[in-house]
């Protein structure tokens, strides 16, 4: 058979592809290893330093492990709620807006999401509070969903639209249903882009969740705020270091998810 002869160009092309991806894969692996290590070392050092130094009464009020853990927990909860809501809203919406028919109103939704992201997060949070009077977790989570929707929505749509039309044609042509093509071809091939969008959204959410203290939502913003108002530098340091560390950790988790959930063979 000629399969052997034809195998030759195939082999060289394959190795070229693998070489290229192996370089990026290696840099990704390095980053995936060092990022959490760096986060743990830096955040741990700051917290240990703060807790073990001579604290006055005011500092002891906030700089104790239970308070730090509670505030961190609140911060993580806000981020979690926001990400779950964003995925639950943006992915199905993004899919729907790429279907023939609804795709005509896609610009409207994209414009709305753009608006959400363009508006300053603090403004959106405060306006939402003034308008609804809600306080606490939901007063932060709902405006933040609006604020972080765009990356996931846009990446879901782009991810599906960039799937080679001939694959969809081939899928339908051999008898897969429209839903079958969506589930087995379009969505898996869009997963890398959707995850990249989610990663961006999560980093945005974790960063802006520091504004939650404005509407009584808790979170690490409270440490920074307290430290600032009472001029307690150590409290500010701990709050800032934890917020940054959490953002980097979330970014790392996103990277891990991209690495593991992206289908093989889809570049």
């Amino acid at each position, binding site marked *: 058979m000629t399969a052997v002869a*034809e195998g030759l160009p*195939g082999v060289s*092309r394959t190795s070229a592809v693998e070489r290229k991806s192996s370089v990026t894969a290696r840099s990704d692996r390095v980053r995936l290893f060092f990022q959490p290590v760096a986060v743990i070392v830096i955040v741990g050092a700051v917290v240990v330093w703060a807790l073990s130094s001579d604290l006055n009464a005011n500092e002891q009020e906030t700089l104790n492990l239970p308070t730090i853990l509670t505030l961190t927990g609140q911060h993580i909860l806000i981020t979690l709620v926001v990400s779950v809501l964003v995925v639950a809203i943006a992915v199905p919406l993004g899919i729907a807006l790429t279907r023939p028919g609804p795709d005509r109103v896609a610009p409207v939704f994209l414009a709305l999401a753009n608006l959400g992201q363009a508006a300053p997060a603090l403004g959106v949070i405060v306006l939402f509070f003034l308008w609804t009077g809600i306080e606490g977790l939901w007063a932060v989570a709902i405006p933040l969903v609006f604020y972080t929707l765009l990356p996931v929505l846009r990446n879901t749509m782009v991810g599906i639209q960039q799937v080679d039309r*001939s694959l969809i044609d*081939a899928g339908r042509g*051999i*008898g897969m249903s429209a839903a079958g093509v969506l589930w087995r*071809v379009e969505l898996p091939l869009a997963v890398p882009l959707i995850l990249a969008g989610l990663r961006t959204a999560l980093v945005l959410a974790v960063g802006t969740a520091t504004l939650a203290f404005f509407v009584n939502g808790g979170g690490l913003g409270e440490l920074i705020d307290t430290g600032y108002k009472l001029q307690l530098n150590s409290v500010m340091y701990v709050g800032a270091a934890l917020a940054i560390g959490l953002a980097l950790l979330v970014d790392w988790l996103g990277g891990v998810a991209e690495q593991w959930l992206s289908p093989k*063979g*889809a570049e």
Partner: protein
Amino acid sequence: MTVAMEDTETKAVSGAEIRLENVTKRYPNTKAAAVDEFSMVIPAGRIVVFVGPSGCGKTTTMRMINRMVEPTSGVITIGGKDALHIDADELRRGIGYAIQQAGLFPHFTVAQNIAVVPGLLKWDKKKIDARVDEMMDLVGLDPGTFRHRLPRQLSGGQQQRVGVARALAADPPVLLMDEPFGAVDPITRGNLQDELLRLQNELGKTIVFVTHDFDEAVKLGDKIAVLGDRSTIQQYDTPDAILANPANDTVAGFVGAGASLKQLTLLRVRDVPFDTDNVIAVDHGDAPAQVAEKLRLADRAYALVLDERQRPLRWVHRRELAGRTSLLDAGKPVGDSVTTQSTLQDALEAILTEGGRAVVTGARGELIGTIDISTVTDVIANVRETHADGGSA
């Protein structure tokens, strides 16, 4: 007709006849129909090639058969069954579909790609696995090596083979192929075409093949439909009928220069009346003087020297025999020869290199006869005459 056609008469046919009656496709907001009142019968177990310029609607016409394009009006039946009033997905699972650049799913392995349609048809896993291996063998890819590869780890030609395997996996009676070999290099394309003909010889599917390459159409088609604007049928006939007698200027333009030379690729030496007694054949052990006498009596200039198994060795001229003791070093060796399986194109090549007459040999290399340029020209003239009255459409 040629022997090639008779071969297909006798082989197993698993294909189904496709009928299109007054099939029209009209897109909204356009005045002219994309395909206008298209009617054609595609015989079971044959390869019919739609050939025509880009944008003539040949792909649209083909895609209406599996309703990737929904006809606006008309009737399409496959194996007598109405194709337009059943579920489109069900219909397509019973029709093989191969497209340019194969359209393999990049995140599926070769085996998963081939298994898609059997999976949709809910075959059990064992049967699917066995079928995948069978299909990979059929298209010449070793299952052990390639089953778990991803499409991007294959060459273009290998991807195309997987594409054909996927199209054939559920053993559909009908196969639609939309320029499947358009994106591979010429050598691989030639190989894939040969492979398809071999497969078709085994399987006897009804194949509708779309291409803009007329030579590909001549090579693959049992019948060729030359299509013009809005998919109007300019000519629908066998390749040799179209080559011999293009129905109009459009077809002639598409056939292009060298129609007679292309014709020669369709005919084989066994199909033409080559000379079987027009040469003086002598044994290599004969005495040269005896041979010279024989030639003088027959009033001929050349003799053909054979070995003990009747295989042609040398051409000798009467003048070259004087004073020789053996025939084995007289004259010049036979260079290019042809067999009864050779195409007339090969024969013409041999005639030209041998200087006017080429030796025709049988399966074991034994002399059967000779062929000269007048045989070739007579055949071409004959074919043209046969098809001059319009032939059968």
